[in-house]
């Protein structure tokens, strides 16, 4: 499908940049929330979107998931899967913010810690959605063209672990 395009140098370096951007943002967002899961639960509840009973597990799991996906992207490990999961999380965040916007609920999105009711939350929604769309684009790109330089995948998926796979071998192994 994207065989020829995916082997081009600029495509691979774009993937490298995309996974670094999405990865670092996810790590930072997750790490800030990680020590305070109850605050994360509160932020999830403020959306009034999920059934109350699952807000606690979601609030606890979300920061961990963000950090793990972020680390995988930065390291270039399981890039394809991590990129699609990252993209999926952005879709979820965009849906969440659109939901509160549509319902006129003014909250702090809780994207980087914080969360809960907020006086001037609504004014932030357009920019927050724009930011998440940009990050979604990074995830989709890296999901479509997962091969990139300086990635642990080059070692992980190589047929001969001592010598990183060259293009043809990788291409074959991913077919």
């Amino acid at each position, binding site marked *: 499908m994207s065989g020829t395009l995916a082997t081009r140098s600029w495509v691979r370096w774009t993937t490298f940049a995309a996974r670094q951007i999405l990865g670092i943002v996810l790590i930072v967002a997750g790490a800030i929330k*990680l*020590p*305070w*899961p*109850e*605050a994360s639960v*509160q932020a999830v*509840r*403020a959306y*009034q979107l999920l059934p*109350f009973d699952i807000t606690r597990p979601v609030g*606890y*799991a979300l*920061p*961990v*998931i963000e*950090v*793990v996906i972020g680390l*995988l992207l930065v390291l270039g*490990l*399981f890039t394809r899967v991590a990129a699609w999961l990252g993209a999926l999380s952005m879709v979820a965040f965009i849906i969440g913010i659109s939901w509160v916007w549509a319902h006129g609920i003014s909250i702090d999105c809780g994207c980087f810690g*914080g969360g*809960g*009711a907020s006086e001037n939350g609504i004014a932030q929604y357009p920019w927050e959605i724009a930011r998440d769309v940009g990050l979604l684009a990074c995830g989709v790109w890296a999901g479509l063209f997962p091969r990139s330089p300086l990635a642990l995948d080059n070692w*992980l*998926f*190589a*047929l*001969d*672990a001592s010598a990183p796979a060259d293009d043809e071998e990788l291409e074959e*192994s991913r077919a």
Partner: protein
Amino acid sequence: MTQSRREALRRQQEAQARAKRLQRIILVAAIVLGLVVIGVVGTIVVSQLNKGGTAAGTNSSVPVNATSDASGIVVNPGTFKDGVPKVEVFLDYQCPVCKQFETQFGTTLDDMATKGEIQLIYRTMTFLDNNLRNDSSLKAGIAAACADNAGAYSAYHNAIFAGQPTNEGTGYTTQQLRVDFAGTAGITGDKLTGFQQCYDSRTTQSFVEGTNEKAAADGVNSTPTIMVNGTKLDNNTIFTQGTDAFRQTVMTTKGNG
């Protein structure tokens, strides 16, 4: 060596390489999943430590005037008449606007409660602990619930707000909660001893965690929130009202069921 033999050997080597590669992938995937599990478990442990531990499970109890569903404490048990409005105040002891509400309408509500014109219920929340990164809302909530057991809930509640620090986030000291506010609320002698034992052993902690959880489950995520018979009052409206107008609002708000 024939062509086909060489071919077969090459295939075999390839198959071995693929098997090794698969092993490697599975191993790394397992490590990643392991890290996720450790992360989630670690998060739960850290959050427990941040809360300052939990109640000594053996002597955990609900305060005497708790509502039947343990969602709050009735301020005026036995004095309200049948059919009067049920007024629920959702509060957090670290919330400055709650203090403002208390200053503006606390006396009015207390008066209405004493006369039995309303059933007054305080539903304590503790979510500001998460925002302010301390545990003062929970500790104040525990202390207030212990004060209910000493028969001085309303007075102690008022004492906390009167002593609320000017800067949000400073929190309450143990001295304030154990001694000062109890003194202001008129808790003395054996009752003081009982109150302090209750506070020290965090007897009412799980009750207070429950009132926060039940308020959140009822869709309340900011304080102060005032509900009359289940209908939420608009804060922007009531904060501009005088006490008479507020009293009127409380008495005339229709319930939602």
